[in-house]
């Protein structure tokens, strides 16, 4: 985790203005996902970024090198995930599901060199063919606030579910 030490960018973690800007950024991300503007969503990520969903019931520090995740994408595979989802042949998302991403409890947990560690709670609803799935848990972000525009360096979505009731994890929660 980042230490709250480097103030050279004028960013501190208990700055309410910064938190408001981060919330806006996360709301933008959620909106892009809700609207299936998934290529624009991918553009929020910095080159070399990672996107992970650890196994349910595991601790938050789980490592995809030693533990079986649900999703452990490097930048290339995340790009390919997005490419796949734009295709009609991604059958599980054809016809496309409807989604709504809710986030709350946004906290800046650390900041260094303009890069913020952010956590927030989430609940994401997915509706398709008369079935409503819900996914819930905590997002852990590392956001480069020194970049212009801001870029996500990593996103880890830790599910608080004890098993994956919806069966699929085809959407970005």
């Amino acid at each position, binding site marked *: 985790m980042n230490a709250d030490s480097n103030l050279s960018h004028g960013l501190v973690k208990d700055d309410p203005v910064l938190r408001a800007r981060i919330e806006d950024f996360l709301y933008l991300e959620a909106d892009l996902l809700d609207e299936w503007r998934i290529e624009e969503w991918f553009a929020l990520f910095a080159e070399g970024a990672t996107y992970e969903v650890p196994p349910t019931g595991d601790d938050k520090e*789980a490592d995809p090198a030693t533990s079986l995740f649900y999703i452990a994408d490097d930048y290339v595979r995340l790009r390919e995930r997005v490419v796949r989802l734009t295709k009609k042949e991604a059958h599980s998302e054809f016809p496309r599901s409807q989604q709504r991403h809710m986030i709350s409890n946004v906290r800046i947990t650390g900041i260094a060199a303009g890069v913020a560690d952010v956590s927030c709670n989430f609940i994401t609803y997915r509706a398709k063919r008369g079935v409503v799935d819900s996914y819930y848990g905590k997002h852990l972000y590392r956001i480069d606030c020194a970049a212009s525009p801001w870029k996500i360096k990593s996103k880890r979505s830790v599910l608080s579910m004890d098993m994956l009731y919806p069966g699929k994890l085809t959407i970005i929660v």
Partner: protein
Amino acid sequence: MDITVPNPGLPLTSSDMVVEDRQRHLFRVARRAFTDEEVLEQERRQIFDRCWLYLGHGSEIRNTCDFVTRAVGGRELIFNRDRGGAVHAFLNTCPHRGAMVVREKKGNALSFRCFYHGWSFNVNGRFASRFEEGNYGKEHYGGGCADLTQVPRLESYRDFWFVNFDRNAVSLSDYLAGAKEYIDLVADQGEAEMEIVGSGQQYIINANWKLLAENSIDAFHGFPVHSTYFDYLQNIGSLRSDGFNAKGMTSLGNGHAVIEYASPWGRPIARWVPSWGEEKRELVERIRQGLIQRFGEERGLRIAETSRNMVIFPNLVINDIMAITVRTFYPDAANRMTVSAWALGARDEDHELRKLRLFNFLEFLGPGGFATPDDQEALENCQRGYRNQREAAWNDISKGMPRVGPPKNDDEEQMRCFWRQWRQRMAGAV
């Protein structure tokens, strides 16, 4: 449409639900077999109460006093190793009033204690409480009536542990029959032994359990359902086009079947693809040479190069593909199953190779993979389509029947093996 070959009438009993006409190359399965709760009840009695069912891998309880709890065949079980190292499977229910004694998913404990009234047990299942005199008599202390109940049969092959609720079942070894050779091809990949990596994936599919048994060994659906996965391999430069030619399928006896084919994808053991980078090439090549050294050119390359999808009747899948997945599933209802899937790797595996194995697993497999979710979509669509069964009552599983010579892996003979066994079991003929 050939109106001289009408579909059979609506089936009344499970033995009418599988219709094979070799002369006319027709194999039909009634959609009712996937939807009817009475059929499921009969499956519970004739199949799940009598077949060998996968419980877990020995590596999950490697140390003495390790335990995991697991639902198998509709029961709640404790799979554990006692203080002396012996492996047990207990029914997870207190002999006193029935509460589940162990409630954690896994752990290590010197004894088990039921929280309801405090009855406790040694990890070998023996009643271990000592109440004041006058509370309980001899039958409780040493008479066995207060011990945890053992599963009637528990046997293993290459550290894959199975249970059977039928005391009179044939041995596991006889039951596995030809499947043992293919378990060997997986178990031999580690120089020391194999292990389950991390915890497994558990998820729900809203479809009948037999749809997943079929799907797991179905090469016919590969390109139509998974084109986006193959596009992905192509995009990143991992598609090795010398692959996927049909090598064929083998009936392994007792309803088990396997398909084997040249791999279009990379395999951590041991088939390098360019997207892994040059630095991994040497590592994978070393593993490959090691296999050839240990098993000779033919078997060594077979382990390294080819992929295998196997179903062990009724509900165990061991797919040795871009990674090894061990998968079992059980019906919660006729139209719903719970799936448990694990990754298997060599215990002494190099850290980089292990990382690669898990990365590779996720590119295809599991709820977040680029392929498994589309399988789930297909299965759930089938289940939904069966709502039309009063007018459209039959599945067709005939592909390859007129073929002269051995079946191809994208024929449907492997499913026919499954269904013939299903029919026999349901009729009580096995």
